């Protein structure tokens, strides 16, 4: 079973303070720590687990600058066999559609039975790359995947629905499955893996290698374009409780008491 996993190198922002940069269209990236997109982390792990069970190969692909080699090295260290980085200044400003176009051009020439992506990226949150990629490749897909069982050319998947409900669907391979977080437990990078990864070559392809024109990628090749970025207006102004932890605790307890909950 040959598996392709699409990964993205993103800034970790869940616990970081974010500032908008001088262009007004992006955030200030300096000082932020970059790593594999959280959803992709699970997709990578799922790919490696499936490979360990069924044999075959895992190829990791990313689109980004040279810095994103770090995410590919991580994939290789965690068990991917090959890595491809798609880099071109023209790719800048691509939305999910343009990204999927680039990926599809490369992937259609690779052997695969399964493509895994994260259900979304923690930065732009489009949640579109997996399904668009599938459509461009003419294969079926499922998103929000919480469980994968492969049997005889068919993937039986659990999809997460709202309110704690899941649905089970069967998809004929080859297919694209966009993975939801929590599907597995991503492993740590080992020293053995790191050393193995360093010996591998990362294949680098640009716009011309991919076979797309300038107009098909970047902002011109996208459906959606950022006009400006701003800090969300506060809907409701919370009252800040200040003081030492003990003082704050006393204030919270007081609120509970007024509500008749103590």
């Amino acid at each position, binding site marked *: 079973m040959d598996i392709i996993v699409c990964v993205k190198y993103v*800034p970790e*922002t*869940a*616990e970081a*303070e*974010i500032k908008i940069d001088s262009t007004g269209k992006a*955030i200030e990236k300096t000082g932020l720590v970059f790593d594999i997109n959280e959803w992709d982390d699970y997709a990578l792990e799922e790919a490696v687990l499936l490979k360990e069970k069924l044999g075959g190969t895992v190829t990791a692909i990313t689109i980004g600058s040279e810095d994103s080699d770090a995410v590919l090295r991580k994939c290789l260290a965690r068990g991917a066999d090959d890595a491809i980085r798609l880099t071109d200044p023209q790719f800048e400003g691509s939305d*999910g*559609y343009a990204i999927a176009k680039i990926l599809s051009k490369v992937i259609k020439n690779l052997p695969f039975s399964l493509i895994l992506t994260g*259900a979304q990226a923690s930065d*732009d*949150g489009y*949640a579109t790359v997996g*399904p*668009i990629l*599938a*459509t461009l490749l003419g*294969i*079926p*897909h499922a*998103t*929000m995947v919480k469980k994968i069982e492969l049997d005889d050319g068919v993937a039986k998947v659990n*999809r997460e629905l*709202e*309110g*704690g*409900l*899941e*649905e*089970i*669907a*069967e*998809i*004929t391979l080859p297919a694209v499955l966009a993975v939801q977080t*929590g599907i597995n437990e991503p492993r740590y990078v080992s020293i053995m893996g790191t050393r193995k990864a360093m010996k591998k070559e990362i294949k680098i392809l640009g716009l011309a290698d991919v076979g797309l024109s300038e107009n098909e990628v970047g902002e011109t090749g996208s*459906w*959606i*374009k950022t*006009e*400006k*970025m*701003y*800090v*969300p207006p506060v809907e*409701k102004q*919370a009252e*800040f*409780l200040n003081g030492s*932890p*003990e003082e*704050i*605790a*006393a204030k*919270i*307890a007081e*609120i*509970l008491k007024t*509500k008749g*909950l*103590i």
Partner: protein
Amino acid sequence: MTEIFVLTEHRQGQIRDITFEMLSKGRELAGKTNTELTAVLLGKEVKNHAKTLQDYAKRVLLVEDTQLENFNSDAYQKVLSSLIKEHKPLLTLMGHTSFGVELAPSLAVSLDTPLATDCIDLEFEGETLTVIRQMYGGKVNVKAVLRKAESYIVTVRQATFPVEKEAPMNGEIVEVPSPLSEEIAKKRFVKYVLPPPGGVDITAAEVLIGIGRGIKDGSNIPPVEELAKTLGGALACSRPIVDKGWLPNGCQVGSSGKTVKPKFYLALGISGAFQHVLGMKSSDVIIAVNKDPKAPIFGVADYAVVEDLFKIVPPLKSKIEELKR
């Protein structure tokens, strides 16, 4: 006159709330763009839904087919494609739900129609469609424009647009024969499943303590659980906690978990991604503790504490014990 399509989302005999939210927004947009609002309903034996929808749209396009009984993005895509090609709506709205994220992107590619996902607002400025979306887990908003086209597809975030009480529209029901001529073979719905239940029923608790990523490790949960017990309440959490297997599924609050309305919700180390907020914002009193003063959770909280949760939990527990004595 062109139309605005709203795709009805229904499951297990129920029309989901997102549908009415979109119809409300759709009505506003139709008024502004001088278009007509059409509810699109795909399913099997769903005439009762069509009747409900008559109040909310000028027209209900109804396609019935056994293959549309349960959601299948392949089948939906084929039927919607054919409807959109025929009606050329200015805009098709669907929910940014598990259903919409599976369907919208491939539909957009197959029709070569620009798509914007997970929008919290949208507006036509002349012929240009402008949307508001969020990035970085809700920490920033983005105003974005879509490539100019005759038709657009937008998925909208749940619980974002209020359902306005308006005069019934008495829309007409238009039955359209199903364009599905052959079996959808590559993707099959099997069944619905409920993940194994676990823990207490958090929807019944008057006091809830929600924990998020800030808890750092599963081994840090017991002291918080103790605090919850002291308060006679229960422990709830945001998605990462369940993902890591630290608490059972049943404890998750948010769009993919439970919706709770306790009298008191203490959010500890929860950043406030909208998925979580959706599930707890109707709580009576919300106190949020987070180290990041700009955490989105403070936008829904009544009281905000910018502090490490581990510094608050122990003194809070002793304070409460003191008051109970």
